[in-house]
């Protein structure tokens, strides 16, 4: 008798287990038919405002696809790499996803994105998109993603302090050091925050001196330029703000702009620091007290004028495993139409990649001017590793700030660039 009981229980458990795993058919909809669910991945922490905007987009989307629910998942930036790896391995990927623009080429190279060339051709608004940014989304003449928004960095400063001390917004490197020194001497706070882990800011100095990370080697590969005098001089100046000019504190060595400078500036404990338009809202969360005295000037080039800035930002793509490519692309065009792009730009503080969309807030206008001079790092599938896994430039800058020879460190960094950018 007891064997029968055991057998019955075992069978029941087995049945229950298979029943749990047996409903994998819901999401599979054939071509042309609307899926029950459209999975959208957004990067970052996801604020209530962001959710509200995306809810609005979903409502519009439902007009065309009434049977499809949009499910948004937020992926915090530090978890991006592992989350996408899991998506590639497990097939549990999204339909539509936001991508960091410097990661697009890596994704294309790894075959993670769907080819949307035909869909893109049929989208009239495609013509309004920034050409450089669009170039970053193509490979071998095929389009894999659509530029969404971009952000550029400027130097945040205190208007009240600059006025009181009679400082004009710096136009050259010399002006910048002098301004930092003046603020530091009279306000008893560090003049400027120069963290070592801020590749974007560093690149503006390299480009502002006529330098490059790497140039085209003529065979579709890259040749490192980091050991050239222009780049070395720029890194020396950047690190020198900490070591020789002593207008930037050592406490940000090994850190990035979010690990101290942003907070310190918001609290009035730092004269200047480099960050983007989106920092305004983050700093207000720290302290609203001096918010009306914060302003921005462009990162200066060595001898005057605005240095080129790296347009960090995001693109929208259809994940290769998506079974609803058409609906997914519809969602992208809705999210990035003129109306929603404007709402998004005003909310996020990021510039739209559409030529027909501008910020409403006059305070952020300076960023529109800064964005007039953008540049991209080498469009290579290896940039992700160069920047994220190996942190080549941050580690070189850190070593230089700690007294190593700039020539030597940049030579090493250049060797890394030569191997990593040509995967």
């Amino acid at each position: 008798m007891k064997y029968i009981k055991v057998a019955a229980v075992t069978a029941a458990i087995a049945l229950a287990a298979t029943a749990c795993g047996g409903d994998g058919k819901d999401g599979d909809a054939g071509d042309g038919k609307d899926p029950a669910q459209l999975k959208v991945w957004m990067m970052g922490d996801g604020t209530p405002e962001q959710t509200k905007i995306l809810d609005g987009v979903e409502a519009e989307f439902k007009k065309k696809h009434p049977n499809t629910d949009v499910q948004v998942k937020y992926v915090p930036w530090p978890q991006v790499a592992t989350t996408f790896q899991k998506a590639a391995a497990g097939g549990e990927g999204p339909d539509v996803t936001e991508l960091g623009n410097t990661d697009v080429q890596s994704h294309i190279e790894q075959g993670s994105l769907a080819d949307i060339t035909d869909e893109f051709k049929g989208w009239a608004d495609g013509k309004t998109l920034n050409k450089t940014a669009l170039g970053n989304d193509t490979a071998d003449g095929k389009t894999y993603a659509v530029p969404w928004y971009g952000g550029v960095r400027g130097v945040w400063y205190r208007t009240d302090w600059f006025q009181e001390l009679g400082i004009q917004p710096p136009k050259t490197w010399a002006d910048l050091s002098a301004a930092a020194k003046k603020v530091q001497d009279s306000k008893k706070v560090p003049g400027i925050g120069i963290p070592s882990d801020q590749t974007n800011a560093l690149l503006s100095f390299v480009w502002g001196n006529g330098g490059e990370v790497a140039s085209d080697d003529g065979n579709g590969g890259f040749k490192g330029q980091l050991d050239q005098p222009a780049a070395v001089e720029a890194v020396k100046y950047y690190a020198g703000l900490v070591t020789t000019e002593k207008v930037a504190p050592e406490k940000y060595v090994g850190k990035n702009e979010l690990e101290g400078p942003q907070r310190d500036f918001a609290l009035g404990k730092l004269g200047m620091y480099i960050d983007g338009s989106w920092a305004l809202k983050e700093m207000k969360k720290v302290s609203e007290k001096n918010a009306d005295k914060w302003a921005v000037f462009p990162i200066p080039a060595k001898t005057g004028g605005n240095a080129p800035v790296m347009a960090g930002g995001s693109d929208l793509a259809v994940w290769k495993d998506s079974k609803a490519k058409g609906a997914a692309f519809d969602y992208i065009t809705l999210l990035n139409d003129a109306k929603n792009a404007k709402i998004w730009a005003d909310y996020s503080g990021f510039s739209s990649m559409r030529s027909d969309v501008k910020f409403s807030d006059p305070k952020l206008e300076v960023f529109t001017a800064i964005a007039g001079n953008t540049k991209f790092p080498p469009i290579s599938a290896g940039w992700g590793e160069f920047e994220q896994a190996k942190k080549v430039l941050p580690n070189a800058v850190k070593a230089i700030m700690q007294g190593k020879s700039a020539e030597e460190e940049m030579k090493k960094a250049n060797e890394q660039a030569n191997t990593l950018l040509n995967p």
Partner: protein
Amino acid sequence: MLDTAPAVRRAPGRRTSGRARPRRRPRFGPYLLIAPTVVVIAVLMFWPMVQIGIMSFQKVGNRQLRGEPAETVGTENFDKIFNDPFFWQTLRHTVLFAVVAVSLTLVVGTLVGLLLNKLGKRMSSFVAGGVMVAWATPPVTAAIIFSWLFGTTGGLVNWCLDLLPDFLVGGGWSDYNWFATPLSTYTVLTVCVVWQACPFVAVSVLAGLKSVPGELYEAARVDGSGPWRTFWSLTYPMLKPIFLVLVVMSIIWDFKVFTQLFIMAGMANRDAFNLSLYGYSEAFGSLNPKLGMGSAIALVLTLILLVVTALYVRVMVRQGETR
């Protein structure tokens, strides 16, 4: 469970009938009972290790994760890491950290254990409860708390050091960045790891001390032995088996430290990497995962730990012989 009673009742009858079956079945039974455990361990622990062994000779990236066949590259992954001075740097960090952290953990833990044994009942449970909190804290929480304590803006440690007179600790502490150089990073890491690990040592030592007969200590006191002498001539030999096990376990734990360092140094400070963090950054650090390289590094770490574990098992077996 309920069925055991009738089985016992039926047993005598079988014995008289002289059948061998009931005697053979219990011998087979234990293996049957342990089989699920063995299977689970094999699937969950042994198989991943075999996988890592295989992958360390392959090139595995996102394309392979999607299902493309992995390309075998021979010993290329190992050639790469052994020829990379960075690997040796991380290995050096790993070993040096383990040596320092293990010694400190044992010294501090033993002292706390001795203290617990000396204290009265109430105070002893109070202190024991306190150290248990440290042990119970998840590593992530502990690491975040310690990076706050040692933070450059508003960190408690810098604030305290700055308040102390300059002739004692030197000046300029308010802005001191603990996570800028490997040495200072590892100092914070050591404090954090030792803080978390010493309660286990303390409690184990306490348990050992409780088993030492009190007369021995009385005799020692009568003979005029001081605390130092008493410890080395009496306590240490009595607790030696416990100490041996604790040393080996601490070595294994401290070789594998990852969470705390990952949170404190992060990916930006490669000069402070240890082996685990190096392996992680190769395998998962960017969108181009190099799981083959990561596996190769993990395999090296595993082999080192296997040697330590072999030592551990030997110690355990020897203990069994002497008792």
